[in-house]
C-alpha cells in the first residue's frame, strides 16, 4: 500500500516536471519568436477614419494609417508597428508623461511649436543625412522652414497648414455680391451688410466670424495681417517682440474694424458656419471634411474659398507644420528611420510617396512634398484645397522659437482682450510684448 502511494507520488512529480519542461520550451520558443520581431511604437494625433481607412459600405476607398502599416509589416516580417492614436489636445501632455517614465514612442508627431523645446531637451534624434538632403531638395520651402530649428532639419514634414477666406456663396449672392472680397475694406463692408439682426437686435447671422479658442487660431490670422503690412512677429535674433510696432497695431485695428462695423462680435463662432449662421471666416485647410459632411449635396453650391483679403495690396497668410521625428530614447532608431524613409521618401512609379497619398486621399490635408503636391490633382485641385495650395506661395511660416506655445498663448489672450474692448489695441499689444520679452530674455538673452 505504502509502496503504491510512493510510486503514485513519483509519477506525479515526473509528470509535473515534464509539463513544466514542455511549458518552459514553449515559452522559450514564443520568446524567441517575439524577440525576432522588432516593435516600433508610433504615436499619432490622427483618429477614426484617418487610422482605420475610409469605407463606402464594405469597400475601402482610402487607406488609413493602419493599412499602410500593415503593408510595411507584410513586406518587413521582422517589424511590428504599434499605432497609438492620441487626440491632438492631449498629445503633448501624454508625450511629456511618457518621456518622464522612459516609455516614450519611437516615432513622434511633432507640431512645429513644440519642436524647438523637444530639440533643446534632447527628445529628438538627429535626422539621417540622406533624409535631410531629401527634405531640402524635395519639399516646399515653407515646410522646410517649419522643420528647421537653429538651421538644422529635425524631422520629416508631413503636413503644412495655412489659411484662406471661406465664405457662403448663397449668402453673398442673396446680398447682391458677385464674388468674395478682395481687400480688407471690402471684407469689412461686406461683412456688415451680410450680418442679419432680429427685431430685438439679436444677431441671427454673422457676416464674419473669427476662429478662436486656442492660441494659433487667433494668432495666425493676426500674423498674416501683420506680415502683409510689412511688420514682423519677433526680431530676427529673437531678442524681443516686434509686433507692437505700428504695423502690428494696424493689423489689430483692422480686425477691430470688423467688430466696430457690426460684421462680427465676440459671440460669433466659426463652428456655426455649417449651420448657415456665418457668411465668411478665415479658416484652415482641415475644415473641409466637416463642411462637406454638413452641407452634403449642397456643398459645392454653398462653400467658396478665396485668398485672405489683402490689407496692403498683397495677401499673406501664416503657415504652421507637423513633422515626424524619432525619439532619442528609442532602442530602434534605425528601424524607425527605415519605416519613415519607406513611408515619406520612397517614391512610387507616379512620383508620389505613400505619405502623400495618405494625406491627399484620406486626410484631405496638404502634403508638403513637391512630387505629392503635383501628383494628386484630383484631391488637391478641388473646390476647397486649391486656394490653400495656391496660397502656400504667399505663406510665411511662424518662427520656431523656444516656448513658442507660451508666447502665442500670451498674444492670444491679449488680442481677445482687445476684441472685447477691455484693453486698447496698443495696451493689449504692449502688455503681450512685455511678457514675451521676458521669455525671450530668459531663453535667448
Amino acid at each position, binding site marked *: 500500500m505504502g509502496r503504491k502511494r510512493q510510486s503514485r507520488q513519483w509519477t506525479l512529480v515526473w509528470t509535473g516536471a515534464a509539463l513544466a519542461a514542455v511549458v518552459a520550451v514553449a515559452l522559450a520558443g514564443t520568446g524567441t519568436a517575439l524577440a525576432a520581431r522588432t516593435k516600433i511604437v508610433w504615436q499619432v494625433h490622427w483618429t477614426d477614419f484617418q487610422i482605420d481607412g475610409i469605407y463606402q459600405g464594405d469597400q475601402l476607398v482610402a487607406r488609413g494609417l493602419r493599412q499602410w502599416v500593415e503593408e510595411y509589416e507584410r513586406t518587413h516580417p521582422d517589424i511590428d508597428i504599434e499605432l497609438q492614436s492620441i487626440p491632438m489636445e492631449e498629445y503633448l501632455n501624454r508625450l*511629456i508623461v511618457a518621456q518622464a517614465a522612459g516609455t516614450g514612442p519611437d516615432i513622434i508627431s511633432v507640431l512645429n511649436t513644440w519642436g524647438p523645446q523637444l530639440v533643446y*531637451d534632447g527628445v529628438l534624434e538627429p535626422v539621417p543625412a540622406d533624409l535631410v538632403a531629401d527634405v531640402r531638395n524635395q519639399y516646399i520651402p515653407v515646410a522646410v522652414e517649419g522643420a528647421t530649428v537653429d538651421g538644422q532639419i529635425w524631422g520629416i514634414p508631413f503636413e503644412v497648414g495655412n489659411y484662406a477666406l471661406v465664405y457662403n456663396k448663397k449668402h453673398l449672392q442673396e446680398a447682391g455680391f458677385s464674388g468674395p472680397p478682395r481687400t480688407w475694406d471690402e471684407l469689412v463692408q461686406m461683412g456688415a451688410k451680410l450680418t442679419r439682426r432680429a427685431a430685438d*437686435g439679436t444677431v441671427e447671422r454673422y457676416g464674419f466670424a473669427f476662429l478662436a*479658442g486656442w492660441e494659433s487660431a487667433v494668432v495666425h490670422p493676426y500674423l498674416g495681417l501683420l506680415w502683409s503690412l510689412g511688420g514682423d512677429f519677433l526680431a530676427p535674433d529673437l531678442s524681443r517682440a516686434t509686433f507692437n510696432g505700428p504695423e502690428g497695431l494696424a493689423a489689430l485695428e483692422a480686425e477691430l474694424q470688423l467688430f466696430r462695423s457690426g460684421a462680427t462680435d*465676440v*459671440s460669433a463662432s466659426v463652428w456655426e458656419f455649417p449651420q448657415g*449662421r456665418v457668411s465668411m471666416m478665415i479658416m484652415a485647410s482641415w475644415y473641409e471634411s466637416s463642411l462637406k459632411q454638413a452641407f452634403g449635396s449642397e456643398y459645392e453650391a454653398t462653400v467658396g474659398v478665396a485668398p485672405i483679403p489683402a490689407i496692403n495690396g498683397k495677401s499673406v497668410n501664416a503657415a504652421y507644420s507637423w513633422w515626424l521625428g524619432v525619439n532619442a530614447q528609442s532602442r530602434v532608431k534605425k528601424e524607425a528611420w527605415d519605416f519613415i524613409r519607406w513611408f515619406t521618401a520612397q517614391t512610387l512609379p507616379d512620383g508620389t510617396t505613400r505619405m502623400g497619398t495618405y494625406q491627399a486621399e484620406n486626410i484631405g490635408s496638404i502634403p508638403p512634398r513637391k512630387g505629392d503636391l503635383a501628383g494628386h490633382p484630383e484631391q488637391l485641385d478641388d473646390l476647397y484645397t486649391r486656394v490653400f495650395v495656391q496660397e502656400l506661395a504667399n505663406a510665411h511660416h511662424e518662427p520656431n522659437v523656444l516656448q513658442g506655445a*507660451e508666447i502665442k498663448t500670451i498674444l492670444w489672450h491679449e488680442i481677445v482682450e482687445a476684441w472685447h474692448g*477691455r484693453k486698447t489695441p496698443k495696451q493689449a499689444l504692449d502688455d503681450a510684448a512685455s511678457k514675451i520679452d521676458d521669455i525671450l530674455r530668459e531663453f535667448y538673452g
Partner: protein
Amino acid sequence: MAGYLFLSPAILFYLVFLLFPVGLSVYISFTNWNMLAPLERARWVGFSNYTYLLTRDDMFIASLKNTLVYALGTVFIGMAIALGVALLINNVRGSALWRFLIFAPVVTPAIAVGRIWGGIYHPSQGYLNQLLRAVGLPPQQWLSSAELALPSIMATAIWAGVGATVIVFIAGLRNIPAQYYEAARIDGARPWHEFWHITLPLLRPTVLFLSVTGLISAWQVFDLVYSMALGGTESGTTPARAVMVVALYLYTTAFRSLRAGRATAGALILFVIIFGLTLILLRVLRRGGLEAYE
C-alpha cells in the same frame, strides 16, 4: 518595537505616497523644470516662480480672484438654495422622487453638463434668451460677455451640484430630535423662530462639512470652465482673464507652456489658500450642533 512594526506598512505608504511627493513638489517649485528634460537638469531659480506668479503674472492673479468668487459663490449660494429645497421636500409626499430628480445632475459628467448649458446659454438659439425675449427682456451674451461668463458658469455649477448638498442637508434635518420643535411650539415659537433658533444652529456641523468640502472642491474646478468658456465654443469667445480658474491655469502652465516648476509653485500657493480658508471655517463653525445645547 512591535507596535512600530505593525505601523510600518502605513508609515511606508505615507512616506512614499504623501511625504515624498510633497517634498518633491516643494523642490520642483524652486526650479525651472519643464518635465521634458530630466529633473537633474532643471535649474534652481529660488523664489522667482513665486515672485513671478504673485507680482508679474496677471493671469494667475486673475485666476485666484475668479476662483475665489467662484468658490464662495457656488458654495454659499448653493448651500442656501439647497437648504431651502431640503426644507421644502423633507416632509412632503413623494420626497424620494424629488430627491432623485434633484440629485440626477450630480451624477451627470461635468463635460456633458457644460455642453447642455452651453446650448441653453447660446446667444441666438439658446432657451434662456428665447425666454427673455418672450417676456420682453433683452437677450444676453451669457458666455461670451466678460462680465456674465463667470456668473453663468457658477449658476450651472450650482444647478449641477445642489442635489448632493440637498441630500446631506436632509440627513442633517432628520438628525434633529423632534422634541426640540415640540417644546418650542409649546412655548409659542413660530416656524421662522424654529428655523432660526433650532434648525440652523443644529445644522452647523452639516454646514461646516459642506463648506469645507465644497470650498476644497470648488477651488479645483476645471472641466466646467474649460467646456463652457474656453476652447472656442459655439457661444463665442470669452476673454481668458474673465474666466480663468486656478486649476486650469496650472494645467496650461505645466502642460502647454512647459513650466512645471511655475505650475507647482502655483499649486502650493493654492494649497496654502485652501488650508487657510479651511482653518478659518473650522474656527468660525467649529462649535454647534447638539453639543452646543449641552
